[in-house]
């Protein structure tokens, strides 16, 4: 292993080296900070880099481990958190001038749990204003600097792909973890609604928002979810049940699992390379013993409309205080325009969207009785290419709160060299099955091991 390899170690690899005292938390933190110095000026994945406090935390982790107090696989591991996550005494901007001076007095539950697990918080990653977009203005995709990393968790995805963090957190209301993960060739999980606390995280839409882990491998993702998931009495949506050990579930049997895929009519407009890599991946899953069948989701168009109305109604309610007191602070994005319009939706229209959501959830449950998981492309096109798909296969899984795992599955040929991805969707709180399938897939492929040319 050379010095250049350290920032690209997986969490599993790095934690093993740290536990065996072959790599120290200070060494890995310093090396990753050097990597940030080297590539961040080209990528702009961070709003705030916390180099000084990261080194202090790394030294503390090193002392603890030397004393035999090893906290677990995140101890001494450098991670980034999206700049919607409150960090005590560190500014948290949510990518907007409206909150440019906001310094929280406490850590978000997710940040608190990462710190308690011994993770080193390296910085706050970039996002579009208030997470409102599928793009992250100002942040560049490490695979092609002229292209977007996607959004809204674009900074986290870009930082991972470029070797500037070993793990990160993101937020997903319409696809904001899975989209950037796909565009940047990394792994991102939108967990089940209520599995990961949103306490201390800037809201976009309360009944659609999810916080989740982003990593370079599926196994690393399970390690992070083990730390950040679980009941939080401070979050009213948090579900109180014993969370399993997701790392142990990685190697569960997948042979015989039933995998539903969208009918070809649902993939009209998808990029040729996306379809090609998707079909190649299906062959791999079949070789792994998975049974594949096409399924219908006739309710997608209505579900899409319900998600949009719920999202913008709730966002407008959250933004009301800012719109009335700091409207001039909004940036040149569409946020102000959207929430002004969203403020005009009536309560009856919003509640109708929620009732439609509940009715469609029953239909989705029926679909998920005939299969164990769904598999779709992660995005309909590679980063920065025109979006021509007739159907959006991201938004609906946030609407139904289902766990959805994005992972890399190849690279485009035209244009060349852009990451492509898959999305594995499981039943509520069955993240373990999605992980097991993703882990098996990554055991026989090497897409997740490629590094961008930067």
């Amino acid at each position, binding site marked *: 292993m050379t010095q250049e390899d350290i920032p690209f170690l997986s969490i599993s690899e790095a934690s093993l080296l740290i536990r065996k005292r072959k790599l120290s938390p200070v060494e890995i933190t310093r090396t990753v900070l050097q990597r940030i110095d080297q590539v961040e000026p080209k990528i702009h994945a961070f709003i705030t880099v916390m180099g000084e406090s990261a080194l202090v935390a790394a030294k503390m982790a090193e002392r603890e481990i030397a004393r035999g107090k090893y906290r677990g696989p995140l101890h001494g591991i450098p991670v980034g958190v999206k700049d919607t996550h409150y960090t005590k005494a560190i500014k948290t901007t949510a990518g907007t001038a409206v909150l440019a001076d906001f310094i929280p007095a406490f850590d978000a539950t997710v940040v608190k749990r990462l710190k308690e697990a011994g993770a080193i918080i390296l910085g706050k990653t970039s996002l579009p204003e208030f997470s409102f977009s599928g793009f992250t203005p100002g942040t560049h995709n490490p695979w092609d600097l002229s292209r977007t990393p996607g959004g809204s968790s674009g900074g986290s995805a870009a930082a991972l792909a470029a070797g500037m963090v070993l793990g990160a957190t993101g937020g997903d209301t319409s696809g904001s973890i899975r989209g950037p993960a796909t565009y940047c060739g990394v792994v991102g999980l939108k967990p089940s609604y209520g599995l990961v606390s949103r306490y201390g995280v800037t809201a976009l839409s309360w009944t659609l928002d999810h916080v989740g882990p982003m990593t370079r491998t599926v196994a690393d993702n399970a390690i992070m979810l083990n730390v950040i998931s679980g009941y939080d009495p401070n979050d009213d949506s948090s579900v109180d049940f014993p969370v399993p050990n997701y790392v142990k579930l990685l190697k569960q049997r997948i042979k015989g699992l039933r995998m539903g895929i969208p009918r070809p009519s649902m993939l009209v407009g998808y990029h040729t390379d996306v379809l090609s890599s998707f079909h190649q991946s299906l062959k791999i899953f079949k070789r792994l013993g998975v049974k594949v069948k096409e399924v219908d989701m006739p309710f997608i168009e209505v579900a899409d409309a319900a998600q*949009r109305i719920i999202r913008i109604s709730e966002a407008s309610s959250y933004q009301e205080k800012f*719109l009335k007191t700091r409207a001039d602070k909004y940036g040149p994005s569409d946020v102000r325009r959207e929430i002004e319009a969203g403020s005009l939706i009536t309560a009856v229209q919003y509640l109708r969207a929620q009732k439609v959501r509940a009715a469609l959830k029953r239909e989705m449950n029926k679909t998920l009785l005939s299969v164990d998981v769904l598999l779709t492309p992660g995005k309909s096109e590679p980063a920065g290419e025109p979006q021509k798909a007739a159907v959006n296969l991201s938004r609906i899984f946030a609407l139904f709160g289902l766990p959805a795992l994005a992972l890399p599955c190849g690279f485009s040929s035209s244009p060349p060299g852009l990451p492509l991805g898959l999305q594995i969707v499981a039943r509520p709180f069955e993240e373990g099955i999605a992980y097991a399938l993703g882990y098996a897939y990554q055991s026989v492929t090497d897409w997740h091991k490629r590094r961008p040319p930067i």
Partner: protein
Amino acid sequence: MYKEMSEEELKEIIRGLGKIADLSISEERIQILLPAFRAQLEWISTLNAFKLPMEAEPSPIFQLKKRTAQ
């Protein structure tokens, strides 16, 4: 139905709803947010066309259960 409405009629609705929402939306802002308002009307129209069951109408409370009924 909204598709038959003129731009001026839509603007009038925005002015009225804006007052109810206690927002002072300027004429310039009304022009800017008009496309977003139209998009919302399209989604609302899609939802209105969806027939909710008269009996056992679902509750508008979103809650995720741990396990889908098998």
